[in-house]
């Protein structure tokens, strides 16, 4: 097997949002880093499918590590997003009570938010609720507003973290699966599908496979029990129908089904919460999707006027306990970051800061830290529907994908970027090409032409003779 020819300080296993944030953090601390991702691009697993909300943490368990990481992540995202050209849409959120029992639960939600330091959360009257959301179904009894909830781009944010790391010397490999880990005197020898690599520290961010990676050398301290969430994406015209993120009153088992605008101008409805064994398979199901539509319609009757643009399902790396499962093993040069469920997108930067603290407290002397004298910031392509996009600028090469207004220049730029995608899914997430209402009716042939032989698995299987 060809060697990966790497000898590094830190290997981060898994290019999900948490892995991307840790890769950035340790690179900026001054470590020589390597990110290993089994898929053809970052975000190939759990992180590719979420509700793309930057949460305040108003409803997280008070005093938990999850809350701490969410709030630190939230603050850091707000602090860095402009430097990276990452979008932010301030929608706010609203918990709506539809029956008496739910109405009685609202003061408790406000109290918990205040306990969590989110002091602007407040009860609103039914009248104010309908002033804010005139298209909501009749019959709502009351609500709670959370002004600080935002919608963000769930894909370009982690890509920005990775890009910044690469700009400071971080290395990465896609389509690279870790198959074996072997302890050495001063670190680890990892065997991957692309060769071997020696490292002083391993940070396991393998998401739905986290316990299996830990299990390669010890009895894991947690067991992944994937929880599936199905979502529906509605046509952009639907975005006029709501303003805030519309949340139900949570139950002990689930946060429930929400309605939310996306940064790309759509509306999403979901997720479901379904336990399953399979760590890879995220089916959508017609019956479940029809039930979801019915739930959505009961909140927003006009929803059914709009066609569904896309359907997707994600697997959240839940474990047998509710909390984050972060374990450090200083004797073994290993940190395991597991059980990061639906709040990972918000918490990622905060988790990275927490892991840095763990490292500084218990792992110093593993490798020298020489942070870069000056930080450089990547400028990410702007994909938000609420900001000027490339199609408005000259020299864009023309629009290739009409539903999502993706230009030829944007597609070329993805391949010419610091960290190019190595699969179609990655290209879609980075540009939004073929993500629109026609599912590629008009653009897929142009996209196949632009991709050429740059990717192995592509849209076509060959040429017509």
């Amino acid at each position, binding site marked *: 097997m060809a060697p990966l020819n790497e000898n590094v300080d830190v290997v981060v296993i898994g290019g999900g949002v948490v892995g991307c944030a840790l890769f950035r953090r340790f690179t900026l601390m001054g470590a020589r880093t390597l990110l290993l991702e089994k898929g053809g691009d970052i975000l190939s697993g759990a992180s590719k499918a979420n509700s793309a909300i930057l949460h305040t943490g108003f409803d997280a368990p008070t005093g938990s590590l999850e809350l701490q990481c969410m709030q630190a992540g939230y603050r850091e995202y707000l602090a860095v997003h402009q430097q990276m050209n990452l979008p932010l849409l301030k929608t706010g959120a609203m918990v709506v009570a539809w029956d008496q029992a739910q109405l009685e639960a609202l003061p408790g939600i406000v109290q918990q938010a205040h306990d969590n330091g989110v002091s602007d959360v407040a009860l609103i009257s039914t009248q104010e609720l309908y002033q804010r959301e005139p298209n909501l179904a009749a019959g709502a009894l009351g609500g709670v507003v959370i002004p600080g909830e935002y919608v963000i781009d769930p894909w370009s944010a982690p890509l920005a973290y990775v890009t910044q790391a690469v700009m400071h010397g971080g290395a990465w490999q896609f389509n690279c699966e870790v198959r074996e880990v072997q302890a050495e005197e001063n670190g680890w020898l990892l065997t991957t599908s692309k060769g071997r690599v020696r490292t002083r520290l391993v940070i396991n961010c393998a998401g739905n496979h986290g316990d299996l990676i830990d299990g390669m050398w010890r009895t894991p301290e947690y067991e992944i029990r994937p929880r599936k969430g199905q979502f529906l994406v509605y046509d952009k015209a639907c975005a006029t129908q709501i303003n805030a993120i519309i949340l139900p009153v949570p139950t002990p088992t689930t946060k429930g089904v929400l309605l939310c605008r996306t940064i790309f101008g759509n509306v999403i409805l979901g997720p479901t919460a379904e336990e399953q064994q399979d760590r890879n398979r995220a089916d959508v199901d017609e019956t479940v*999707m029809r039930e979801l539509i019915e739930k959505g319609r009961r909140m927003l009757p006009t929803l059914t006027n709009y066609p569904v643009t896309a359907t997707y399902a994600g697997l959240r790396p839940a474990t047998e306990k509710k909390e984050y499962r972060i374990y450090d093993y200083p004797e073994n040069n290993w940190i395991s970051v597991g059980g990061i469920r639906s709040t990972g997108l918000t918490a990622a930067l905060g988790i990275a800061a927490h892991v840095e603290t763990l490292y500084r407290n218990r792992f110093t002397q593993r490798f020298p830290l020489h942070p870069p004298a000056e930080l450089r910031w990547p400028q990410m392509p702007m994909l938000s529907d609420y900001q000027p996009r490339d199609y*408005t600028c000259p020299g864009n090469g023309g629009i290739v994908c009409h539903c999502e207004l993706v230009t030829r220049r944007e597609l070329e730029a993805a391949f010419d970027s610091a960290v190019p995608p190595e699969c179609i899914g990655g290209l879609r997430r980075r540009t939004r090409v073929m993500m629109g209402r026609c*599912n*590629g009716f008009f653009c897929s042939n142009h996209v196949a032409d632009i991709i050429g032989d740059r990717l192995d698995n592509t*849209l076509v299987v*060959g040429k017509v003779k």
Partner: protein
Amino acid sequence: MNARYPVIIIGAGPAGLAAARALFDAGVKNVLLLEREAEAGGVPRHCRHPTFGIQTFYRPMNGDRWAARIRQRIEHHYEIRTNTTVVSLNPGGVLEISSDRGLETLYAERIIIATGVRETPRHARLVSGLRPQGVLTAGALQQFIYLRKLKPGNCPVIVGSELVSFSAIWTLRNAGIRAVALIDENLRPTAFKLSTLYARLMGVEVHLGAHITRINGTERVESIAFRDAAGQERVMACDSLIFTGRFTGEYTLIRTSHLLHEADSGRPIFDQYGCCSDPAYYAVGNMTHPADMGDQCYQEGLRIGRFVAESLRAEASTSFQVPVILHEVFKIAAPNVVRCDTGSQASLTLNVRVNRYHHGEIRVMDRQKILYRKRHRCLPERRILLRGIDISALTADSQLTITI
């Protein structure tokens, strides 16, 4: 560049090109056509079957030849800006467009919207399963094969039994690919009964009354699971899946504009002259009644083009509008409002679609008064014309109801 035009046409497919031709014949100068594809001609460019041309050139032609012919009737007379996308419609005939030059604003006295149709793809149909590569529409298939000479799969399954579904078999055959099967929810083919015989002659299994229960495959389609008409669960190996038909108008621009439209579909409100709620805007072609034949759209485009030319000459007379109301068996009517004014034609043709099979009388009523009655045999997705409806006695209080 002159950003002001008497008429701008959005979409240089059959309807748009025909409207342009009618404007040219009426002596209107300096009309601009906007086309988002690299070449004018619309969907027929990638339809290589001889179902075009009879009404326009009195002989059958393949779609690409026909598209070239109707394009030639315009391109020497008017500018066609290709690779140009309209991104918004604004009151009074103001357009925002995007191209390699970036954003521009254009103005016109009249704007004709001829944006055509697309098929309903996998996601909008809420099909169960995974989301691998190799799931496409018949339109995408035609473009891969005819415009790019690329094969999207080696053993595809076709979903649907409309005319376009059988055209997909033909398209595949021209690329040396045999479809594994054709599968549809309906027990009878939507196209015509003999069409399944054609599929079988081409070596394609036909499963009617079948429901897809799962798409399998992580990177690329590996198989589909379906429940057949007898209720049996079956699995069929394939490497691609082609969703055909269930055409829907390209209403994207209208839904986000100031123009009145049907809330549940996005179809504009327009009268028998194609005129929308803002009199600067006209709608024509398949966008208003998915999906008629190319020639039919061309003929309609000529008609609407003449109306637009007239509207540029004449001051609008006082008129009133009468809504068209549908019995539940009907899905759409084109037009969906009727304009009545002095000098307007007394005879109206309505183009309707049904939601389900109907064989029997169709009546058009002005309240209690019968304006039209005739027996029709109606199938979903097919054009049904109600011709010669007498609208001379309509008043401002009238309402037209189409019923059975």
